[in-house]
Structure formats: C-alpha cells, structure tokens
C-alpha cells in the first residue's frame, strides 16, 4: 500500500487523540521562473539541468498535536511529492515525523528546502543539489525524523535532529530516492543521519553545528561502473557548519568529509573526498542583497564514487544580486563560473521568485 495513504490514514486515526482541538490548515505557494544562459563551454558534459519554471506547494493539516505536512513540486520537467510527513508534537521542543523528509545533515536544504524565494541565490551549493539534478549526496529519505531543541547554557539553545529511513539508489540516471507516489522499496536500503547545533538565542539563525550520516546506496543497472560488478556504495559523512547572521550580514559555511566504499561481490574500492562551500550575503539599501559563494572540493578527481555523477561540480564561484522589489517577490541575477570533473562553463541566470500565503 502506498506510504502516502498510510500517513493520511495515520492522521485520521490519531485525530481522536486531538479531540477538542480544531482542524487547522496552511497552504503556501512558492512559484519561480528563471532564464539560464551558458557560455564559454569547454567540455563535453556542460549541460545545466534545472527547473526553469516551478511551483513549490507546501500544505499543512493540523489537528491538535498531530499534523500532516507535505511539499509538492511541480516544474517544467517533473511533478513530485518531495516531502510528506506525519508529525507528532511530542513536547514543546520536540517533534517526531514519519514519512518522506529532507535529511537534516544538509544545512542548506534544511533551511530552504525546494522553495526558491527563501534562498538568496538562484542555485544551491552543489553538494546539496537534489538527486534528480545530479546531486552527489542523498537528500530524500523515507522513514522517521526527530527534531528537538533544548536549552543549553545561558540563552544558548541546542538543536538536534536524528533521522533514519530508506535511502536513494544509484541508477544510470543518478541517485533516485524512494518515490512515495510510485513506491518500489525492493532495492532501497536504510540510512541514518544526525545533526546537532548550538545557537545563541531562540530566534537567531546564527550557530555552529556538527553533521553525520551513514548510508548504503545500492547501484542498479549501471552500464560502466567504476568497479566491475558494482553492487552498492557505503557512504559515510561527517561535517560541520557555521552560520553568522546579524543585521546586514549572513555568512554560512559547510564542509563534509565523505568516506566511500564501492562494493562488488568480489572486491571493494575505498575512497574519500571533501566538499564544502562558504557563502556571504549582505543586505544593501533599497531592498537589495548581494551574495558571493565559493564552492570547492578535495580529492574529487580521484574519487571512484564521484565518477558515478558526471555533473559533479569540482569548484564553482557564484555571485549575484537579489532585489525584493515588492512584498514577497524578488528578482535575482546570478553569475557562475563552474568547473566540473572534466569541463568548465559559465552561466548567467535571471530568476523571479515569490511566495503566496
């Protein structure tokens, strides 16, 4: 039976526990459209795969301490139920989810998810790219997620998130997460993630954090795997992040160290690589925000694992300007200079994004 139906049924079954509480709902639409132009290509594989037009729809149905929360993304090349979670507000600071979620070790995706309007730049750091857009790390899991916040010391708060669920598989098309609408759990294996961060206040974005994840990613149907007979990949991640957000400045940085083990029935290939980014944003007068981002990697060229992802960005410089010209609408222009594993290109993007409540 489809997981989505299970979750809806779950909400209904839990509703007696919330007797006396009203049903509340919320709907948020975040449309965006962008124009992309590439130039100065110097490689065989320099295509940009990206949504040109998309609408990110978020909906919440809450009854007491239970809520059903989903995110549906409709774009020019896909329509996908990106998140679908049944949540229970176990305490004021803790919520337990089951369903399909974005893994918490991705700082960027945990903050912005699929909504373009809420992120300053047009494109996200490549290490956080979605699986169907050539991403190298699993982002969508189907299982459980526990998020909580605790008082640490003084005004400092400790926020944690722990998740576990079905990880994506690796196919010739790239990484493919478990699809709620067309479920096929035959090949998917379980992965786990954990995140812990300290923040100087209740309502501030600033903070420092540690990240860890372990995944087993089966490989299916690869024509020319880097290891003959490749069966699955064991991926272990550790990372750290820091965010500084003050009145006009926001600086965020993330770094992962990935340990990979490519496994076939008869052999394994070990490898590792590092990947990360630093982004600085500055709010300027006239509702302008300038941003600059550096993305880099270490040992990416030697990684057998990364050979599975031809769009892997080895290094990229991004810069641009966002203008919030009216309430809840923004225009962003972004320039990128991208080096992939075997090529190079530049691109310019112009994006309109909005949020409608």
């Amino acid at each position: 039976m489809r997981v989505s139906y299970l979750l809806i049924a779950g909400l209904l079954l839990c509703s007696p526990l919330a007797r006396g509480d009203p049903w509340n709902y919320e709907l948020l639409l975040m449309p965006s459209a962008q124009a992309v132009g590439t130039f100065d290509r110097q490689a065989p594989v320099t295509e940009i795969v990206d949504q040109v037009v998309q609408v990110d729809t978020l909906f919440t149905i809450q009854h007491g301490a239970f809520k059903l929360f989903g995110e549906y993304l409709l774009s020019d090349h896909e329509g996908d139920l990106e998140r679908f979670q049944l949540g229970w507000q176990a305490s004021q600071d803790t919520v337990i989810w089951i369903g399909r979620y974005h893994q918490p070790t991705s700082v960027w995706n945990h903050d912005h998810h699929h909504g373009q309007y809420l992120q300053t730049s047009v494109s996200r750091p490549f290490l956080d790219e979605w699986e169907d857009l050539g991403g190298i790390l699993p982002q969508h899991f189907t299982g459980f997620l526990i998020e909580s916040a605790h008082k640490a010391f003084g005004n400092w708060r400790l926020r944690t998130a722990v998740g576990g669920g079905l990880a994506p598989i690796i196919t010739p098309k790239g990484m493919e997460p478990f699809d709620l609408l067309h479920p096929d759990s035959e090949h998917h294996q379980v992965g786990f993630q954990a995140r812990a961060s300290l923040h100087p206040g209740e309502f501030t974005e600033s903070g420092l954090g540690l990240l860890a994840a372990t995944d087993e990613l089966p490989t299916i149907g690869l024509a020319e795997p880097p290891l003959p007979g490749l069966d699955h990949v064991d991926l272990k991640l550790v990372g750290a992040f820091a965010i500084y957000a003050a009145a006009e400045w926001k600086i965020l940085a993330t770094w992962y160290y990935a340990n990979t083990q490519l496994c076939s029935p008869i052999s394994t290939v070990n490898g590792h690589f590092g990947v990360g980014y630093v982004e600085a944003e500055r709010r300027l007068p006239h509702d302008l925000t300038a941003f600059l981002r550096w993305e880099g990697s270490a040992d990416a060229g030697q990684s057998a694992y990364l050979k599975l992802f031809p769009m892997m960005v080895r290094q990229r410089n991004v810069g641009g300007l966002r203008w919030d010209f009216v309430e809840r609408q923004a225009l962003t222009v972004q320039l990128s200079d991208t080096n992939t594993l075997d090529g190079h290109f530049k691109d310019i993007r112009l994006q309109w994004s909005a949020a409608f409540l």
Partner: protein
Amino acid sequence: MERLVNSLRVRLIGVVLVILAALVPPLYLGVSAIVREGYAERFVNSLRGYSRLVADELEALDESDFDRHAVALLDSAVLSGQVVFAEIRDRSRTLHSSIATQSVNAPARDDFHFGDQGDQVYFITHTVNRGDHSVALRLGFDELPTLEQIAAAERHVLIAMAAFVAASIAVAVWLSWVIARPMVRLQEAAQRVASGDTHAQLNVGSSIREVQELNYHLERMRRELVGANEHLSREIREREVSEQKRLDLERRLLHRERIATIGTLAGGVAHEFNNIMTPILLYSQLVLDEVPAGDTLADYLRRVIAAAHRARSLVMRILTFSREMDSQQPTVFPLRVPVEEALALLREIVPTNIEIVLAAPDEPLPVLGDASLVHQVVINLCTNAYEAMRRSGGRLTVTLAAVENPDEPQLRAGLYYVLQVSDTGHGMDQTVLAHIFEPFFTTRMVGEGTGLGLSVVHGIVSSMGGVITVRSTVGSGTTFSVYLPAATAQAPAQAPATAAGAGA
C-alpha cells in the same frame, strides 16, 4: 521656426524629452519612496528586536537589587549607540540611565512608524511583568542617522536620475543624428535629381535597414526616370528625324507630282506639236525638192526645215522627259561605255578652248538601267558645263569611280559608282542651285535653252535608283555628281528618287 520644429532630429529629441519629463519625476518620487520605506523598515525592525531583548532581560531580572540591575541594563542600552532615551517606570517611581543623554522630551504616546511626531526620536514602550505588577520600559531610538542615510540615498537617486536624463538626452541627440543624417543626404541627392542632375546617384551608405530600403527604391526610381528620359529623348529625336524625312518625302513627292504634271502636260503638248510639225517638215521638204538649188527660196526653205528639225528635237526631248523611264527593259551595262561614247561626240562639237578630260578606272563599273539614258545624262551635263565655259574656256573633267557607302543622306549603304562632271566655269549661286533641277528653269536668254536638260538628267538618274548632287562656287566652277547603284552585288533597293517625267 515651423521648419525647425518639423525636422526629424528636433522631433526625435522632443519625443525623448517629453517621455523623460513624463517618467522621470514619478520615477524619482517612486524610487525615493521605496528608498525611504526600506531604510525605515530596517530601522524599525532593528529597534523592535533590540528593545524586545532589553525587555526580556528586564523581565528576567531577579527581584533582589532590581534597581541596580535595571539601571545597568539601561546603561548598556544607551551605550549600544542607538538609544538616546531610556527609563523604567515602576509604579510611582522612575529609573533613568546613569549615562547622561541628550535632553529629550518624551511625548505622551509611542511611535509606531518611522518619523512619527516629527521629533526624530522613535519612542517605544514595553510592558514588563514583574511578578505581581508591571513596569514600563521606555526607550527612545535616534532617528537622525537613518534620516541622514535617507537624505544621502535620495541625493544619490537624484544624481543617478540626472545622469540618466543627461545620458538619455545625449543618446537621443546621437540617435537623431544617426537617423537624420542619411535622410538629409537622401534629401540632398533627391534635390539634385529634381533640379536636373538625373545622373547623380542616390547612395547614402546607412546601416539602418529602413533607410537602406528607401535608398534602394529611390535609386531605382531615379534609374527608371533616367531611362524614361532617355527613351523619351530618343523617341523625340526619332520623331524629329521621321518628321524631317516625312517633310523631305513630301517635298519630293510634291516635286515629283509637279514634275509629273508638267511632264504629262509637256508630253501632251509635245505629242500634238509633233503632229503639227510633221506636215510642216514634209511639205517644206517637198517644196525644197521643187525649188532650184541656189535659189534664195531654197535657202529659206532649208532654214525652215532646220528650225522644224530643231523644234522636233525639242519635242523629242520633252517627250523623253515626260515618258516613263522604263520604256526599255533595264539591263546591266558597263557605265564606262556610254560615257566614253558621249564624250567622243562632245569632242566634235565642243570648242577647242575647252579641254575635255576623262578619269576612269579600268573596271567596267556595271550598272542596271538604259545605256542610252546614261548617254543622254552625260550629254546634258557636259553641254551645261561647256555652255558655262564657252566664252572663257576652261577644263571639263569627267570622272568615274566606285564608292562604298557614299556620304549622301538619300543613299542607302552599299556600293555605288559615281559619275562626276566638273567644269571651271562661272559657277552658280545658292539661289540658282535651289531650282536647277526644276523643269523649264534656265539662266539663259530666251531661245538659248529650254530649261529641261537638268530636269531630264534628274529624272533619268532617279529612275535608275541613283542620286544627283551639285556643288558650285561662283567664279570657280560647278561639279555634278551622279551616284548610280552598282549592279555587282544584290542591287540595293531604289532610293526614294523622283523619276523625271514620271507622270502618267
């Protein structure tokens, strides 16, 4: 003034100025409002968050030594740089910051918008729970730095707008020049064409597509105009030539008709006259036969008979003039033969003070016609020549030659043989030359000539498809040139000549 206003450049610049005048002021006002709103929003957001933090701190303060901690909190707020007024009202008492701040008159009510109440200080009050009672934390935030930032930003906007306007005007001027210049050049070129210089090419070399197309079509029009002009000119010339030819032909036709009429008349009279002369000659001869020789009467009769013969001869000549020249079937004969025969005869009767010279090539010079008529022509022309030199003597030159495409307008292209008879006599003036081929025209005394000789020559030559011309200089002599088409190749078609005596 109207001319200036209607010029393309002025209009283009005018349109740009009107658009700028319509758009720039509301744009400046709009942008200024956005700028002001942006700065105000940031200011308000910042102070609300900060004051909330201070209020939360105050709420969390322990009751013991509250006053000291509260004043310290107020001091830290003032030291943050944004706060110019800080007080806590607790029931009936008021606590102030120990750091001296500028004198500020706190108004009765709070501000909720930037710039409220016009005092350049944003007042905000937080009600803080203190166990069993509430205290009011009132802070005043200095709006002046933000106001200065807004003013600076508005100045920048104004400068940017001014720069934009200046740049727009400069671009408009340049653009109008770029657009108008090829139009002006086209206009000048068109003026030159209109004033007659149709060969002045229209080529302005512009990169603007519409101007290029206009240039191309105007140039096409010019070429068609030039072509039409030339065509018209050619037609006019051809018509003039045709008209001239028509007039010429009319004149010739008239001449021929007159000659034909005269010929017909003369022919009729001559024929009758010939009939009358026959019995006169006959009976005079009979009487002479009866009269003894040596008798005075015989002498008289001989004179009568001679006169009658002369009269008959004249009649024959008139009949020859009036008769159609095709009485004998034309044959090809060498031109030289009748010429030599005629000259031989002339040498017998021409006085010795006149030298006769023949210059002819050895070729036969075949022509199509009647040899006897050519003989007649030579006799008549030489007779006139020797009459002109009778008293003074001179030289009579007869020339035969072949001429290819003679330079005579009446003659078609082809091979002709020219018979020239030149004398060194007294010559003729233009008045005489104009009439010499007319029948009965003569410069001699009555009885000395009939005036038909050259008419006959003209008729004979015309009937043979030829042309006779004359050149004469008074006191020097006269040259008659007879052009006869050669019979060697296909005989060229007969020129439109008037045959002498061609009337019915």
